[in-house]
């Protein structure tokens, strides 16, 4: 087996054995979304207007919650030391771990998002762009988050610091992800936004693994 599949298989197996972790993230996504009608009132037209943005913001926050542990557990129990010492390509290990993270948190978020969109009265034509934008955007969320998660290894208040570092970098994803939904609900094409999100994903794919690997190397020094 290649390095990628070995690490991916292990992380997936761990995630399945500890599936409560993934479920907690999905539960957070649901609860945080449900808070909004209480905050802005239950009028269907207001909720429909903000549905895309609300789902994107809460999805970003939910992903951040889980990113905190992406490398921290392996760092604390010495697995990262051993991985760095395995003589395998560290960026490949990072890509495998990020893929596992996306499969175990990004995908469940995408799956549950239409149900939450229902409660926010998202117009019918908004569902497809929402799902597609999440599908293309959430891998970038995991990739950028991985850099932050590796940078805060060994700090005193990793989780809060991580949000602080990573959330500003999520703004482009949020802008184009929400714009895709909005374009569709106002009768315009949403493919340009998806293309931009795809471009962001490719850029993150090429750069993030190297930056994360560099951050891990300095963390295990």
């Amino acid at each position: 087996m290649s390095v990628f599949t070995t690490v991916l298989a292990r992380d997936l197996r761990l995630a399945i054995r500890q599936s409560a972790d993934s479920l907690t993230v999905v539960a957070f996504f649901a609860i945080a979304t449900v808070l909004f009608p209480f905050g802005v009132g239950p009028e269907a037209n207001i909720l429909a207007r903000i549905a895309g943005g609300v789902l994107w913001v809460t999805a970003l926050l939910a992903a951040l919650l889980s990113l905190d542990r992406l490398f921290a557990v392996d760092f604390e129990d010495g697995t990262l030391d051993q991985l760095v010492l395995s003589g395998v390509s560290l960026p490949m290990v990072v890509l495998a771990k990020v893929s596992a993270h996306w499969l175990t948190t990004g995908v469940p978020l995408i799956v549950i998002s239409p149900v939450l969109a229902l409660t926010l009265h998202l117009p019918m034509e908004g569902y497809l762009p929402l799902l597609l934008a999440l599908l293309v955007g959430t891998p970038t969320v995991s990739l950028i988050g991985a850099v932050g998660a590796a940078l805060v290894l060994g700090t005193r208040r990793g989780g809060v610091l991580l949000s602080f570092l990573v959330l500003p970098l999520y703004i482009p994803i949020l802008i184009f992800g929400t714009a895709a939904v909005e374009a569709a609900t106002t009768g315009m094409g949403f493919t340009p936004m998806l293309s931009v999100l795809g471009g962001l994903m490719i850029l993150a794919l090429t750069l993030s693994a190297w930056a994360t690997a560099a951050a891990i190397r300095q963390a295990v020094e």
Partner: protein
Amino acid sequence: MPCTPGKNLKEINSTTWILLCYGPPMVGENFTAQEFSGSGLACRRGGRLVFEGLQFAVPRGGALVLRGANGSGKTTLLRLMAGLTPAAAGQLAWNGAPVEDAEQHAASLRFISHLDAIKPALTVTENLNFWAALWGGGQIPHALQMLGLGHLAAYPARLLSAGQRHRLALARLLVAPAPLWLLDEPGNALDDSSLAALTQAIADHRARGGMVIVASHGAAFVSDGNTLDLGTFAPTNTAHWSDT
């Protein structure tokens, strides 16, 4: 787990492979590296210079025991030898040639630290399988048997006692061969029979031409090893820059 050739065992025929995988005790001249050494090594941790001007050399089949008071840098030196911590000065060398490729260096060593890198949610075998797959090894039943964990192979690692966990960490040494073992206090939490197994594993490894560097202030697992006292290399702290 299929048995695949490790990086240092490229020229071994299939019969030997079967022996290596399933047939303890392992014999044969497996490791070819003649010497692992370091010269002029200095290291800083947390802004403090821990040691400087440190020299060492371990010949083929040799052993080195690191001794020194708390804070003298035994763990730091092991992490430096592993290539995790960069040296502030000096260099490591294989057969006299300086280490340049960090990945290749990492592939020729096994490092046992006080962090056991064990996932409680995986079974004992699954824990070892992961490293075997990464390192290209496959001697898991043998490794578990050597350390008296054979009967626990299918249990989740979270059920293991502290001593059993530590033995599982040590089992990584035997999963896939590598010429250099770096062991940080390997005797901690081990009972007498496990200590005997460890002593035996180290002796076997050395008999095959492997090298062992061990930090320990307790029991001796290594016979006739050289001793390196880190107190000798404590910094003298005289240099200051001139006022600007």
